[in-house]
């Protein structure tokens, strides 16, 4: 049944996240950006929302609630409305934990999931992006070679979120034409974690690079073990997640520009009374609304186990095209004030550009 109505529960989640984003995330966003860090306290207080653990199976200590990609998209929009970088940080352990929950063998679930159900923030991450121009998430250059009972991984990854503190990485690697995900411990021999990468935006979400020099992992560390996993489905989750974050960011821009343009007087009236401004706000709204529908559709397909490949691409493509436009025009609406770091729009401009090119950094 095609329907656009949130459940009551989803409305509650939305409201709670909206409040949290406004009260906790937005006030510290600028500081996190300028210091290029996120405090342990903040990560812990986000952790206590239970974003990761609530939807993990009860048998491993989770809340046992059925995972809803749609609900996750809703909450990501709200968190990203507070700040895109902190939103991504907030749900980053899910990048790893949900892949294990979805595709892990029983042994893998038993081993890893309980970590994500504890009281303390437990970082772990996904490694998709590789250095060099252009990104082909499903065609990694990192290789996994089977040697007897082991896999040997070699390659480089970049943009691994919270990789400075992650305990485990889920690394996409290629064995001939087959792409798999491998669980790699931070301390495994041959793994080098780089200094924090310096980026244009999303600086409250520390990222690192990984060098994998003939890293040996056991056959049991291939996600899903002998069954393998559906890497495309994992990537669809991240494409939707990034689109949801772009959605929240875009709405933040619009909602900042509306009152600003009503207050700001030029040529004897509020600039909001100029069609060049008013129509631009309308255009932002049009694309925010449309993007939300695309995100919801893709999340719904993913949630129901339908093939979400096309719809995820649509959400991500649209999010980039219009999210970048909206963030750019947020600056233009503010004019000179958009260019200085007193207002958040310049930060959102940097966030949007950064978010648009990083794959695998946030998921629903």
């Amino acid at each position: 049944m095609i329907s656009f109505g949130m459940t009551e529960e989803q409305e509650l989640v939305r409201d709670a996240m909206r409040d949290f984003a406004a009260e906790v995330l937005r006030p510290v966003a600028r500081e996190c950006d300028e210091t290029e860090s996120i405090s342990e306290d903040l990560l812990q207080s986000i952790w206590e929302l239970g974003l990761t653990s609530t939807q993990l199976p009860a048998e491993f200590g989770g809340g046992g609630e059925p995972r809803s990609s749609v609900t996750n998209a809703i909450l990501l929009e709200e968190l990203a409305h507070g700040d895109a970088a902190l939103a991504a940080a907030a749900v980053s352990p899910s990048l790893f934990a949900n892949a294990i929950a979805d595709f892990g063998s029983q042994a893998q679930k038993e081993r890893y999931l309980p970590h994500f159900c504890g009281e303390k923030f437990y970082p772990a991450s996904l490694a998709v992006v590789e250095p060099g121009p252009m990104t082909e998430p499903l065609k990694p250059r990192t290789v996994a070679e089977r040697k007897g009972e082991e896999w040997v991984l070699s390659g480089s990854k970049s943009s691994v979120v919270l990789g400075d503190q992650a305990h485990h990485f889920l690394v996409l690697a290629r064995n001939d034409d087959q792409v798999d995900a491998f669980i790699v411990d931070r301390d495994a021999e041959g793994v080098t974690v780089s200094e924090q990468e310096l980026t244009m935006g999303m600086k409250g979400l520390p990222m690192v690079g990984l060098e994998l020099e003939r890293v040996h992992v056991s056959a049991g560390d291939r996600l899903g073990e002998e069954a393998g996993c559906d890497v495309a489905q994992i990537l669809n989750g991240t494409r939707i997640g990034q689109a949801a974050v772009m959605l929240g960011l875009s709405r933040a821009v619009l909602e900042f520009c509306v009152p600003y343009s009503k207050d700001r007087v030029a040529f004897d009236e509020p600039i909001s009374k100029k069609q060049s401004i008013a129509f631009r706000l309308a255009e932002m709204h049009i694309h925010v609304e449309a993007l939300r529908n695309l995100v919801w559709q893709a999340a719904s397909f993913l949630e129901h186990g339908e093939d979400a490949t096309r719809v995820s691409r649509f959400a991500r493509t649209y999010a980039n095209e219009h999210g970048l436009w909206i963030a750019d025009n947020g600056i233009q609406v503010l004019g000179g004030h958009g260019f200085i770091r007193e207002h958040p729009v310049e930060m959102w401009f940097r966030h949007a550009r950064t978010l648009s090119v990083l794959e695998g950094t946030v998921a629903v």
Partner: protein
Amino acid sequence: MIDFTPTENDLAAFEHARAGALICRKYARYYDEHEEEMAPETLPETDEFYANHPEIPPPGAGDTSMLTRMARISMISYWGDYTVRLRRESGGLGNAALEAAGTPEQKKKWTGLCLSMAITEPGCGSDPSRVSTTAVLDEETDEWIINGEKIFVTTGIRADAVVLWATLDKSAGRGGIKSFLIEKGTPGFDVPHKEKKLGIRADDTAAYVFRDCRIPRANLLGGDESVARKDSGGFRGVMKTFNMTRPLTAAMGLGLAEASLDFTREQLEAAGIELDYMAGFGTQIAAAERFMRLEALFEASKLTTMQACWLAGEGKPNNMESSVSKAHAGGAVRAITQGCIEILGAMGVSRENLLEKWTRDCRITDIYEGTGEIQRLIIARGLLDYTRADLK
């Protein structure tokens, strides 16, 4: 709940519409090239089609709601052709206005007729408050005397009668505008010509001229009461209609955009070009990436249109969403058809294919029922909490 998966019953309804649309499409080129002819009320295949394709039951409790489904079915029908129908709906835009604003007596009398709606005048465009067609009450005969000219009257030739916008008092602006029911054949009501257009050529868009045309007092839509109740008069009645028609207008254009995408996809596939939806940005052949962007744009517009209808079905306010869907679709269909032509090259502008026709036909989407600019005004006013006077 948020859900995007049609039920079996929904799918059957869509398939039904598509099967009919395919028949209509066979006639699409002919009636485009023969604009002087009217597309027929029913096609030769119509009876056989309905005999072989039993009616699909209306949505049940678990199905997609009626109006949401209707949005999708409209897209699919127009995917076949803009004008040719298996069986023409007997009504026009005026019928919706009658439904929304007519008195019980009026509904009883006029519902069976095809009613066009005449708003636009040579000098007024998207600004209905500038209507200069006048209606003057002759107290002696209890008749309205109508004078003025109307253009762009959709279904203007085929209609049996018209819902006409005229002003009782120009100085009152919007408040002075009322709607009147007028039958064809009434003395003083002329239909001088069918407009020649860029697209939707088979559609009978007409110009109307009224010269001292006299109609009974009872033909004021909504009855005399509508004159008394100043701020809930004819204008608002029609605006209410627009809340339903804007997304459906969007859906019509989107059907043509979807047809364009389907045609282009077939051609790309025939040329051996793969569409890899998992590929990274920039790594595929440019035509494929461009095409997927157009698909994303279509999908966004399709969902937004269905959402506006879904809200209406839920009885929720959808004024903003209606305008969003119309503005979005208006831009999307322009971009999609242009993009498909650019991708396909010369075959995109050849009249051996329908893509060039869809391009012309759907260009109307961003114009009628309020241009994209008017929709953006409505949206901006909503965002800024501005009145009509605050933002012009």
